[in-house]
Structures are given as structure tokens and as C-alpha cells.
């Protein structure tokens, strides 16, 4: 499976580099060498034992190495921008940054830079030099190595010191192709001291072919900065999403990441948050609604390297039919990270006996003055509550729906953008009702 990509790189690495940027090319050969060594991850590896990628990787995907423009107008295919969400709106089509600027984006606060990595590498090489690959290149992971070898562009955001973005930034990843297609991109997000930003990443598919995306996002949150990262996945069931989110937190910073999978095929989210300064706040939340053959694996780590920090992790899954869910919650508290308070919860509901959930809290605590807890449950809907509701005249289906909705509610409450919270509530409710929770025109699931 690896061989075709090794051959591809060997034959075309010149083109790959030519159509990318020096900042990205700097690590490329080393990443490729690592990919040659590691290959694609298999279930034999502890970190991948719940997600078998064999089938997804057996497809002969096309890659757009020569960066041929994809004929698409994102505004035609993307109608999710419901009134109420005022955002700075950006599109990535497959793995290329869509170059036409949305008129709203001209009002960005002074000094904020948002654009393609490739572009910024040319206009502000100094910004990328210190950051690109800083978090990803230290990881021993076949998918990250692959990304390092093949990613040619990505989304870039820079928020200067003490600048507050008044509106969320919305990044819409649209998968559009006539043949089975692989998108590889590498995003970089930098918040300087005291900066504040909210990013909403939406994943959509608009064609019925097989898609695989491999995206790495590095986020650097400096002292006193506040960063919120929301990911809303709403893709069709022939999509494989392999995403890596790496966040580095400096002192007194505040980070919230909330990853919601409403609809998908196979998803593996690797999320690692390194807390590298004192007095940080970290919240990591997520929700999965899965049915049919959907698979979602959230592989998360929170690493407390410094004392006096708080972290909270909350993941909830509702799985039906043959859906498979997995959750890993690594919590590492270094010897010096005294007075850490870290709490982790993973709760899961299986609606049918055929659905499967694997959950693995993994706490490694080397400090002795900490407060840490974890809890994981797998169950079904509360029968006594269902009967209570039916006794009041609520139909069995409606009662189930109310209970499922209540179950996911505390994850939705961890969305600090009110309009987004409302919209996600609506989407979750529709999804639980079994209606297509599609944003009109962008999901093609049966």
C-alpha cells in the first residue's frame, strides 16, 4: 500500500516541491524518509488498534500534485452559512486555499493575517520559519510523516499581540472531485500574547466519490491568549477523515477545542494539547452521532508539563446500527506539574446491540499534589426515564429523542459562540430525528 506513494514521491518530489513553499519543503525529505520507515499505521500499533485503515487506504486515490485548479465555486455548493453566524469566511477546496476573498474578510483587524500557507511563505517567510512543523515533526506517526511529505499548502492564521478577532473565523473544507481523491494539507495557526480568536472548521463533501483527507493543524497559543477551535464534521459515508490537531499552550492561556462528528464515513481525530506554561485553562470536548457503518476514533492527549493548570475533557457518543466508536484519553501530568486539576469524562450510549464502543482512559501522573479524575461509561437509554415520559403521553420515539438530545447537551453547551450553539443544537436534533442533517446542497448520503 505504501509502495505506490513511495514511488509517487520518488518520481515527483520535484513537482511537489515546486508547487509548494520553501518553508514546507524544508522538512519534506525528512518526513518522507520517516514515512518510508513507518509506513501507514496498522491495527498492530497500540495507538491505532481501534481504527483499521486498510480498506480506506486500498483505494487508488488521485492527488493534485501539480495544483491544477479545481473548477468549483464554493458559494454554489456551500449553503451552510446560515444567517446568524457572522464570520470571516474562508474555503479550502480539497487541499487548496480558495483564492477569491469574501467581501466580509476585508474588515479583519489590523495585523491579522489569514490566507494560504504557500502565500504567506512568500509574503511573511519569518512567520512560518519559527512555527511550521515545530509540533508535528517530533511525532513518530506514519500519517503525520505522510502529511509532511505530501502536503503542499494549507490554511494559515496569525493574530498579533493583544488583537481580538471580533467574529469567528470559519474555515470550510470542501471535498470536490470526479475521481476518488486524496487531500493532504497542513494548517498553521498562531496567536501572539493576549490575542483572542475562534475558529470553526467545517468538513463537507459535495461529490459521491471516495475521499480521504489527511490534515495536520498546528496551533500556537502564546501567553494570555485565548483560542477556541470548533470542528464540525458533516461528510458522506465514503469519506475517510484523518485529522491531527496539535496545540501548544503558553502560560495563562485558555484553550477550548470541541470536535463534533455529525455524519461521516471513517474518522480518526488525533488531538494533542501540550500545556507548557503555568495557570492555563484547557477544555477538550467532543460528540459523535454515528449510525450505519460509521466509525469514529477520537485519540486525545492532554499533557501537563507545568504546575497550576486546569483541564477538563468531555466526550459523548451516541451509536446506532453497526457504528463503531473509540475514545482514548491520555492524560499526562509531569513530575513538576504540581497542583494540576484534570478531569476526564467519556460517556456513551449504544442504541443497538450491534453498535460498538471502545473507551480507554489512560492517566500517567508523576506529580503527587494533583486532583485528577476520569470516568467512562457505556450504556443504553435509561428505561425508567423512558417509561416515565411515556406515562406522561410522550411517544416512545419522542422520548428516546429527548433523552439522546439531553445526553449530548453538555457538549453543545461547551460552544461559546451563541449562534453556533443554536445551529448545532438544531443540526443535532435533526440528526437524531434521522433526518439528513445536511446543510442544504452539501451532503449526498443515502
Amino acid at each position: 500500500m505504501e509502495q505506490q506513494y513511495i514511488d509517487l514521491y520518488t518520481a515527483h518530489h520535484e513537482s511537489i516541491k515546486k508547487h509548494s513553499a520553501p518553508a514546507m519543503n524544508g522538512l519534506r525529505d525528512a518526513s518522507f524518509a520517516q514515512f518510508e520507515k513507518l509506513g501507514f499505521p496498522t491495527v498492530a500499533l497500540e495507538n491505532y488498534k481501534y481504527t483499521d485503515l486498510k480498506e480506506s487506504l486500498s483505494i487508488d486515490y488521485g492527488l493534485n500534485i501539480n495544483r491544477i485548479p479545481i473548477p468549483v465555486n464554493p458559494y454554489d455548493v456551500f449553503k451552510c452559512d446560515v444567517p446568524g453566524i457572522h464570520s470571516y469566511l474562508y474555503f479550502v477546496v480539497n487541499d487548496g486555499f480558495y483564492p477569491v476573498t469574501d467581501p466580509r474578510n476585508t474588515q479583519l483587524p489590523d495585523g491579522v493575517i489569514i490566507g494560504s500557507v504557500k502565500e504567506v511563505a512568500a509574503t511573511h517567510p519569518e512567520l512560518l520559519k519559527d512555527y511550521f512543523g515545530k509540533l508535528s515533526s517530533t511525532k513518530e506517526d506514519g500519517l503525520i510523516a505522510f502529511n509532511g511529505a505530501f502536503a503542499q499548502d494549507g490554511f494559515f492564521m496569525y493574530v498579533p499581540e493583544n488583537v481580538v478577532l471580533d467574529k469567528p473565523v470559519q474555515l470550510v473544507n470542501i471535498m470536490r472531485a470526479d475521481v476518488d481523491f486524496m487531500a493532504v494539507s497542513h494548517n498553521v495557526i498562531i496567536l501572539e500574547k493576549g490575542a483572542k480568536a475562534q475558529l470553526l472548521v467545517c468538513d463537507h463533501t459535495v461529490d459521491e466519490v471516495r475521499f480521504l483527507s489527511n490534515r495536520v493543524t498546528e496551533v500556537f497559543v502564546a501567553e494570555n491568549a485565548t483560542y477556541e477551535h470548533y470542528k464540525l464534521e458533516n461528510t458522506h459515508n465514503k469519506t475517510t477523515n484523518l485529522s491531527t490537531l496539535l496545540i501548544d499552550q503558553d502560560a495563562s492561556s485558555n484553550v477550548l477545542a470541541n470536535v463534533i462528528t455529525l455524519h461521516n464515513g471513517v474518522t480518526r481525530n488525533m488531538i494533542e494539547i501540550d500545556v507548557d506554561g503555568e495557570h492555563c485553562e484547557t477544555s477538550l470536548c467532543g460528540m459523535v452521532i454515528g449510525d450505519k457503518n460509521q466509525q469514529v476514533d477520537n485519540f486525545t492527549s492532554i499533557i501537563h508539563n507545568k504546575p497550576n493548570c486546569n483541564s477538563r475533557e468531555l466526550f459523548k457518543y451516541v451509536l446506532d446500527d453497526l457504528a463503531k466508536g473509540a475514545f482514548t484519553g491520555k492524560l499526562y501530568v509531569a513530575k513538576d506539574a504540581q497542583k494540576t486539576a484534570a478531569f476526564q469524562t467519556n460517556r456513551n450510549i449504544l442504541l443497538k446491540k450491534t453498535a460498538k464502543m471502545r473507551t480507554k482512559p489512560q492517566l500517567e501522573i508523576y506529580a503527587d499534589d494533583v486532583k485528577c479524575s476520569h470516568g467512562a461509561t457505556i450504556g443504553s437509554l435509561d428505561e425508567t426515564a423512558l417509561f416515565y415520559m411515556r406515562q406522561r403521553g410522550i411517544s416512545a420515539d419522542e422520548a428516546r429523542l429527548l433523552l439522546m438530545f439531553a445526553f449530548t447537551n453538555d457538549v453543545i453547551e461547551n460552544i461559546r459562540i451563541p449562534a453556533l450553539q443554536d445551529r448545532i443544537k438544531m443540526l443535532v436534533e435533526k440528526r437524531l430525528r434521522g433526518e439528513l442533517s445536511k446543510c442544504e446542497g452539501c451532503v449526498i448520503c443515502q
Partner: protein
Amino acid sequence: MLEIKNLHANINGKEILKGLSLSVNAGEVHAIMGPNGAGKSTLSSVLTGNPAFTVTEGDVTFNGKNLLELAPEDRSREGIFLSFQYPVEIPGVSMVNFMRTAVNEHRKYKNLEPMSASDFLRMQREKKELVEMDNKLANRSVNEGFSGGEKKRNEIFQMAMLDPKLSILDETDSGLDIDALRIVANGVNKLKRPDNASIVITHYQRLLDYIVPDFVHVLYDGRIVKSGGKELALELEERGYDWIKQEVDGK
């Protein structure tokens, strides 16, 4: 209104009701008393269609309909209300949302339009006063973190909202102090009309000082073994159940 004939029911294969018969007419209050394990709560579960119980024999008709054929929600919509002995906490489902859904499902069953938000709030306000329920409780999740008394008051509040034809009060007095008991009983009495009826299931005579029954039945070993007027409750309070057990077992 309600006609129970020779009702047999079991849970996990264990027979609890062994040929129970009872008839309740509009305007009546029936008290069902009896020792622990006699089948009192089973009767309320079976009448409301709790799926944990299986009916093996007998008939139950409610206003001419075969009750046993109806789903729990349809029994509710037909006008049967159970005040639970142990009201269930439902975290994340707000009282308002829960109650509005229930009221509107009842209306849909009667081919009525859903109630407007303002009408609903007005009705909710009125009914809350009936049981002196705290305004704050309506904004919380169903029964979550409610005290024992608040839970029971909430049951009567829901009863007022749904305006049932037959209410079954299952050990409504358990866990209540005297003040709460008075409030709850007052609520029930205010809801009493010539066209509705109640079955009051209780251990103790105490509740019957407040909700005065027309008939008192003693349930023992899955059957009604003795019936009488309200003075039977006083006699039971005084003499206990042993004399009845002896009467029945001696036969």
C-alpha cells in the same frame, strides 16, 4: 370508568397479581392498602403499561376500551395518570420542554392544535400555584436535584397540567413531611371533580385524613381480599394487617 377483572400479572416469571378485580366509577376515590409485597405498586405499573410486567390473564377496560392493548403513551392520552412512588430524574431534559411536549402530545391525540407558548406558560403558572411549586423548579431538568417533597409536588403539578380522568397516586405520602403532605393532598382535592376518579395507594392511614376515600380495599397476596368504607382504613391503622392475613390464609 375502570373495570378490572381477574387480573394476573408477573415480573420475570414471578406471579404478583393473582386474580385482582376492582371497579372504579367517575367521582370516586378508592384507597388501596396492604402489607409490603402485596402487589400494590405492581397494580399501578400494570395499569399504566410498564413493559417490565407481563399480564397473563384477565381484562381491564377503561371507558369501554381494552386498556391492555394500548401503549403506555396512549393510556396516558386516554386519561390515566400515575403519580410515581419514585419520580425519575431526567438530567438534561428541562421541565418546560418535557411538559410542553407532553401537553402537546395529548392535544394531538385529541386532534387539537399545539398550544401556543404564551397559553402554555399561563397554564403552567396557574397549575404551579395549586401545589405551591417554586418557579425555579420549572427551569430545571426534570426532577434533577429536587428534594423528596419537591418531586411529589411536581407529580401533582404534572397531574394538574394533563387533567387526567383517572389518577393513580402510588405512595404519594412516602417521604413527605406533614406540611408537604398537606400541600400535595390539597392539590389532589382541588383537582377532584364528579367526572374524574382516583386510586390512592398507600401504606398508612395518614394520607387518608387528607384525601378522604369513598372505598378502601385491602390488597394481599395479589388479590383484593377485603373492601369497605373509609372506616376500614382506621381499623387497619389500629389492628394492622395480621388479622386479615389470618382470615385469608386460614380459609
